[in-house]
């Protein structure tokens, strides 16, 4: 089952990539732009395809090079229609032209996910035979080195979330733990525009260590926040100052978060349909819109970051989420996924999971399902299944000197970081 589902997710990256630019679509819906985060996941997944024989090394290298070349050549600068600025990229780019769409923001976290993919590619393609792999490494280095993390801190201690032309830096507050750890690690590891080590202390200052549903956990509500940085970083056995003081690590913390989500599924305080100890997965993703729920008493939120146990929770589960936790607890992930597939087989068509399921909202006799597929879900699933099977993505990043530097400057010690 695992390889079949992993392969199904992998073919999304092939089916929804632009043949000229290499950019990968945010969703399978017609007219979808590319999300740079999805591109970051895709770049990390091409090596997985090679190892499984879903593509040749040459094909994967060519696809990677095409993407990196396009990114390197796409215009950077203050102009509103550029692809990026100061080495960062806009969150959503036109699939064919690579230009900014939707007046979206220049995104710090999504650029970090993109750069994680760029570095993973460079770490995998270490051959030199025909120059393709050498060029991949060279371009990857150029792209990463030109990201000006100091600029993105806007003179402060911590990273801003983004920037918009004609406006400036976004001022959304960041408080507590979330998925952005990878951005700090890459920013601290930069040979060109490195943030000072104090930035990591400032970032962890608002962490809250909680005893929640009888579980000690560094809380963050949406499940993906416990998975995104973890797709690349092998947190097993390495500790920053905060985790050392709690005698645990970020890998164990994700296991704890899963325990909270399962317990929440069991308690199911709002009485939503389908929730169980073995059917869970509340995270950011697609959900029914108020228009779709018209006539129902259910209060729904559309696409949003849902969380447990504090909410928001409108009865929407992410069908891919349980399987994406595979490296953190094989039994729970598999039992949950099997239960889900037996009960709601519609969530997985063409071996790809839909983004959202809301069984409390019945539409034309069927539980509400998100239409099509989302690239982020597919990419994360491919990486996490692979981390559980072979550990390849983790190994690629462990071998990346920049990541190692970033971790050390953030204060991580122990485990595989020990010389």
């Amino acid at each position, binding site marked *: 089952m695992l390889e079949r589902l992993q392969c199904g997710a992998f073919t999304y990256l092939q089916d929804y990539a632009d043949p000229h630019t290499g950019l990968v679509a945010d969703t399978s819906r017609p007219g979808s732009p590319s999300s740079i985060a999805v591109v970051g996941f895709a770049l990390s997944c091409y090596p997985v395809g090679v190892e499984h024989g879903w593509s040749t090394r040459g094909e994967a290298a060519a696809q990677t090079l095409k993407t990196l070349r396009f990114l390197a050549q796409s215009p950077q600068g203050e102009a509103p229609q550029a692809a990026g600025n100061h080495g960062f990229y806009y969150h959503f780019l036109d699939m064919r032209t690579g230009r900014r769409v939707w007046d979206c923001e220049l995104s710090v976290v999504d650029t970090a996910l993109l750069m994680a993919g760029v570095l993973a590619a460079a770490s995998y393609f270490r051959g030199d035979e025909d120059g393709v792999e050498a060029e991949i490494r060279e371009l990857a280095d150029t792209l990463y080195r030109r990201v000006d993390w100091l600029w993105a801190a806007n003179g402060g201690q911590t990273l801003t979330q983004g920037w918009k032309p004609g406006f400036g830096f976004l001022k959304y507050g960041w408080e507590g733990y979330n998925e952005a750890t990878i951005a700090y690690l890459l920013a601290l590891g930069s040979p060109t525009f490195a943030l000072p080590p104090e930035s990591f202390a400032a970032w962890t200052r608002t962490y809250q260590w*909680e005893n929640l549903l009888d579980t000690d956990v560094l809380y963050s509500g949406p499940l993906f926040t416990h998975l995104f940085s973890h797709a690349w970083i092998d947190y097993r056995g390495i500790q920053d100052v905060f985790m050392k003081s709690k005698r645990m690590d970020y890998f164990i913390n994700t296991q704890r978060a899963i325990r909270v989500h399962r317990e929440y599924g069991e308690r199911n305080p709002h009485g939503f349909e389908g929730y169980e100890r073995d059917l869970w997965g509340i995270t950011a993703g697609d959900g029914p819109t108020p228009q779709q729920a018209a006539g129902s008493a259910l209060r729904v939120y559309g696409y949003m970051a849902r969380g447990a146990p504090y909410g928001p929770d409108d009865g929407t589960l992410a069908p891919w989420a349980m399987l994406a936790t595979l490296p953190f607890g094989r039994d729970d992930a598999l039992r949950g996924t099997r239960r889900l597939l037996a009960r709601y087989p519609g969530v997985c068509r063409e071996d790809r999971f839909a983004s959202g399921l809301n069984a409390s909202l019945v539409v034309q006799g069927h539980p509400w399902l998100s239409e099509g597929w989302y690239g982020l879900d597919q990419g994360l699933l491919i990486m996490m299944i692979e981390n559980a099977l072979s550990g390849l993505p983790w190994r690629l990043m462990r071998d990346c000197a920049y990541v190692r530097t970033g971790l050390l400057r953030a204060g991580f010690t122990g485990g595989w970081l020990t010389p």
Partner: protein
Amino acid sequence: MSGASDTGDPIDAIDAEWLRRTHPTDWRNPKPPAEPYDLVILGAGPAGLAGAELAARHGLRVALIERRGVGGNSLHAGSVPSKAIIGAAPRDRGGPRPEFSAVRTHMHRVRARIAGYRSVDRIVARGIDLYFATARFATEQSVLADGVPLGFKKALIATGARPEDASIPGLDAVDCLTSETIFDLEALPARLAVVGGGSLGCELAQAFARLGSHVSLMQRQPKFLPGVERDAADLLTRSLELDGVETRLNTEVIAAHREGGERVLDVRSGELKFSIGADAVLLSTGRVPNVQDLDLGKAGVRFDAATGVTVDDFLATSNPNIFAAGDVCVRRQFAHVAEATARLAVHNAFTGGRDASSHLLIPRCTYCRPEIAQIGLHIWEAADRGIPIKSYTVLMQDVDRAITDGLDEGFVKLYVREGGDEIVGATIVAARASEMINEVSVIMSAGIGMRRLATMLHTYPAQSGAIYQAAMAFARDQPAERW
């Protein structure tokens, strides 16, 4: 304003009583004594009243000078009227809405009734000399009350604070309401724009939405109630939205104007600029201390226009005979803090005591539904002091009484110093958080830790059972002791 009238509006009769209690129209100031007063207090709000009462009880000769009405902001335009409005709004979402005229009458009646507990008559009966006058310092040992010199041995500045004027172009044209004027509204505005998402802004936004106004709530910062933690602020945002409040974070008002009868605010949110039309605009962006026109320089009292009278930890000003208390000098502007600091100040002034205001444990609450209450240290304050904290969290959705009541929004978090069982702070979001936080206040003041708390029986079922459940979670978290 007239006394009892025959127009039939019940509010006129209520307000006549209100005036009799807070500022009688026929009032005549006492004749100043030849000797200096032991204590002259500027301002008869919660601080001034508490300080005067304490001093009078100790046999001191006290003058209390009030510019407008006894009771201060809390009674006139703060806690009392706002909670009366909130109390009159439907308790349940979608519950039956009262007529706004009934809400107004309720608010006026509540205010007049509560004014009775601290009325002019009672002040006089305590032997306090009450002056209705504008006060300013003449020297380091005397003030002028409407030009009449009053000498003092000690003085207490308790002049409070007032709503801040926002520097927004065109704001005058839209006749903004403030916390001092919104309670004079005679009709419910169909559309109310609230500028500022602090406590008062959030409370009134929600209350007016429940009463039937369409409310837009604008906040410059990325979250409402910037002083509370993320989980509480997020919950509040969702709750406001469920009440139909249009919440706009990261949104700044850049100009205001009138278009016909409509008030229009030009706002900027990110790089977007747009306009919001309203029938009434409430400005609740902050408060500034009342330090102007006091001639503080003549008394040698240092102050800052933004932060107020400068005091040390014992509430003494730069003039050792002059103290200050309440909103005019403290960061936490609440009536209960004003009263507590006034008592401290008067005690320190007359005993040479060294009771430090920084030792006050201050519970505080925002009266939205659910209520949001806090005490002690924030998570980030603890982090800055190097105190490792573990939060014991109980969701109200896991509390039996909250479930039976159908009031299960929110949580209790007790912040416990790691390695021990000392409670250093708490955040409570719950239907009755304002009551529950007082239990935490008592247990923290008494030095009761999580271990003992877990042995103290609570009624079952009770909303405060959440506090007990947190203590039980702590107990389960400890290694079992050997029997």
